[in-house]
């Protein structure tokens, strides 16, 4: 599995509102995550967890500090390189469980492989189906995502992240929309990805259960 370490050094994030005022969200955040580790970003609502997650996958610009994946500063990458990195190295599972509602679940899961061609898609399909089964969605595989409940959509999005085989999974509130049973299953899969498969998981979460198993716990104020 293609995994490299993550070094976040003195990261600061800020937003500018419509009045031109700057709102500092994260200040001087530093942490490091190695392959085989599960890192949890915790903190109160509005503490900047999602912002940090989005910055880690190159979807949000930061105001100071650096993010280095395998020693490569994310800031030096072009937009296209960041997109490629998201698809091949740092799979991103967002809080909204973004799926294309008109596509079937399986098709949504296989989206990351489309640019690699038909062979890659077919190769990834069986793993995706297996993961769906692990998260209880195998009966929904051919459904369009519009028919899924919120929890099911959340689980489906996580499966897409896992099925992407990116080595690193960056996920935002992976257990927020699911009940305890499925939250535990999600945690189990994330741990397996980190510990058993040598991958890396970085998750923003309120879930104490997830925080409890974290190898690296970063708390945001």
């Amino acid at each position, binding site marked *: 599995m293609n995994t490299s370490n993550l070094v976040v050094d003195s990261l600061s994030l800020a937003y500018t509102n419509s009045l031109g005022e700057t709102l500092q969200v994260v200040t001087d955040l530093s942490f490091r995550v190695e392959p085989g580790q599960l890192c949890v970003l915790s903190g109160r609502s509005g503490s900047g967890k999602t912002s940090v997650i989005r910055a880690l*996958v190159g*979807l949000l610009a930061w105001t100071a500090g650096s993010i280095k994946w395998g020693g490569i500063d994310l800031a030096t990458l072009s*937009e*296209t390189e960041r*997109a*490629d*990195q*998201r*698809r*091949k190295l740092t*799979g*991103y599972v*967002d809080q909204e469980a*973004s*799926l*294309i*509602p*008109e*596509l*079937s*679940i*399986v*098709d*949504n899961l*296989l*989206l*990351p492989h*489309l*640019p690699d*061609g*038909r062979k890659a*898609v*077919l190769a990834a*399909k069986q793993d995706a189906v297996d993961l769906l089964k692990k998260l209880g969605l195998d009966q929904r*595989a*051919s*459904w*369009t995502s*519009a*028919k899924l409940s919120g929890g099911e959509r959340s689980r489906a999005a996580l499966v*897409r992240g896992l099925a*992407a085989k990116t080595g690193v999974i960056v996920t935002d509130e992976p257990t927020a929309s699911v009940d305890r049973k499925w939250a535990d299953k999600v945690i189990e899969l994330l741990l397996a990805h980190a510990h058993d498969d040598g991958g890396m998981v970085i998750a923003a979460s309120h879930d104490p259960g997830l925080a409890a198993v974290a190898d690296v716990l970063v708390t945001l104020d």
Partner: protein
Amino acid sequence: MASWFSLLRLSPKTAGPRWAAAALVSGLVAAVSGLGFQVSVTVEDTLNENWRGLYDILVTARGQDFGAADAFGTVDPNFVATGGRYGISVDDWDLIREIDGVEVAAPIGMVGALRRTALAPSLQISSDPVTGISALRTNTFVALITSTVALTDVDEEQTVSKGTGRVWLQTQSGTDANGLPADHRSSGGGAPQGFSPLQTGHDLFVVPLGVLPAFSSNVVAVDPVAETMLLGEQAGAFLAPLVEAPITREPTSEWQHLMDCDAFSVQCAQIGGVEGGFIDAQSVVPMIVNRTQSRELTLRVSIALASESFPELENVDENYDEVMSWLESLPEASFEPWDSFETRIDGVLVPFSSADLSILLPGSVLPEGEGSQAFFSTAVQLQPRLLERPDFVAASESHGSTVELQVQPREVVGPSGLGQWETYEAGYGMDSSVGLVRAFHATSNSDGASGVLPAPIGTFSLSDISEPDVSEVSYVPTGVSGSASTWSVDADDTPIEVLPNLSGLDFITPAPGAFTDLAGGATLRGSTPIDAVRVRVAGVSAYTPEAQARIAEVAGQIALLGLDVRIVAGSSLQQVSLYVPEYFQEADGSWSDLGWVTQEWTTLGAAATVELALSGTTLVLAAAALAAGGFGLGATALINGRRLRPVVAGLGKIGWRSGYIRRRLALELLPPYVLLAAVSVMCWRLGPPNLSVLFLAAAGVAVAVFLAELVSGMRSARVAFPAGHDSGQGIASPAALAWALTRSRFSWAVLTAASSAVIAGLAALTAVALRDGIEQAGHTRLAELMLRTTQWMTVGIGVLGVGSAVVLLLLGYQAERASLANDTLVLTRVGFTRAVQIGIARRQQLFVALGCVVGAAITITAVSVVFGGWLACLVGGATLVLVIGARLIAGLFMGRNR
């Protein structure tokens, strides 16, 4: 609810398109109303200004068949030429004048012809009286002389007549058998007549060059007072001498006082001769003579000298027969061209004019005291020879114009009007089959009207007869002001005017050679000297139903007299194509066709036709435009309705009763549609009456679309997408993803394709309506003017409709943006690069565009099949390109910014 808030704020992206669509369609309704009103006003104004010519009703004798012209609802410009077979009496004309409502009743009839005969040109040859040296520079002159009279017709020289003769002249001294000085002796012979030189004096020879054909000019009878009323004081002023002509028509010296005896010396002498008992004539026909020089006629003499000479003879008289035999035996090849010279003899074409038909051999000098020895005459025969209108039959081939006819030849004639079997015009008047396109009748004999003398008491030129206050659009030929405009085209499509044949026996009626009054007409033609009466109705001005009814009423009363009537008010000239066969004689004697020429004929009922066509076209275009707007508005409403469903569903979930939601939603949806309905009702009340039903329908559409959006919005949100496709056959490439996304949003794709089809179909229908409108309006001058003045309005209506539909389609596209934005979000988070995303978006647009092409192609094909013509395909196709282009640009642009 504790406080008011807008439901639509929960779905903010629907309000903008709704207001924009309603405002757009309201503007469309108002614009269509305005343009329709403008068309209506323009049509009315143009008709009021151009619907009447100088007269309103053309009255002809019953049974006078206009043949092919009638079949096309036209009157050909030869309506004065009836060959005398039909006629209206002066009594009938009086009855017409007495009908209530008749302002002017102006009679006109062709009553005879002025013919100039015995026109004999000559070649004068003299020796120099001082040196005694012959101008021929030779003692013996043996020549082949060719005399040709020619004119230019359709840009080519045409031979009117041609004669050749052989001439032998010899210088000798002494006296001849008669004791006359014999410096020169002469003899001659040869075909056709043998140019036999005459020695007219001591040192002058005159070689007659044969006799020219007789040239004729038509005499037209009018009532000078009525004609002046018809033409106006200024244009009719040339007829004043006729008004003042003596009632008695006895040939007395009083006529000589009325004539310019310097200009018309022969005619003065003739009348004087009657009074003196030298000439037998009982009656005088006064006339105003046309002095217009209409054509250029050239007399050309070519001389070829014999290459061998006859031995000089001491006594010519004794050897005359021998000389003639020798002369006639000379082969034509033995003559070598020597000289050629020409002179203009146009004057022979002008009635009563003198024309010098003599040519002096270059180098000759007229002896002192010798005058021109031309054989010409200003004497004119006044013949009761009447032209008959030409025959036309259906053209054997198509020329691409609306009215196509072929002139029916009765007998081939050349530019002189001579039949090909005739050498001279002597047979004229004896055989009614002679003439290219028209027969004529001689009511008595061909030698002239017995006992009748012409009295030219005035002159005019065609430029004097400028018909005032008549626009070219409403112009109706009067029969007095010249020949019908006729033109051909050369190889470069440059128009060439075709002038009337010299004989008048042609498809173009020549301008009158002289006018006489009805009494003069009766003298020549008998009791029915009138071919047509042109009637102007009193108390008529604007083009109103009342005015038309009044004219119809007067026409009906005239018809009760047993006469044929044709209402020419509201008519206009139209170009017709005529095929003229066998017109030119080639050098080898064969005849070639003149080919297609264009002439303008009066098309009856042009005003009503144009009005109906434009009204119909405007109605169809307006209907198409409003239908396009209505369709777009409806599509936008349905899209918006679907987007309201989640809002409605959400409010239901928090406890809002559906009745309350419906009322609130209706209240908030209503304003844009109230705007549209109000504008429509206003246009219904104030707009053009012929479109009122459309505006009423537009108001109905506003209500219907409002209800449709309300009902659509209130429907419970269904699961938008049923079970998806089997992933086993799933998406394995960006192209497949694009197709899957397009297919999964089938309703949008179908709506877009349907909209394209409707828009393209409406554009095609608009083109068809315009085409049909132009066809139905006809090809008259009036139609051309009306179409020219209203075209920007009618086309504007069509463009407004199609343009509005395109804009509405783009507004509907806004709804698609939400889906596209979600696609972008997901694909970006998954890690699709921007390039890949754009590729997918482009493919989506391509698939939709293909749907548009298919939908529109079906519609355009259907329109083309049903209504026919490539125009629909062309315009529909062009619109399709526009729609697809706009759709693609919108898709890509909006896709880039999602």
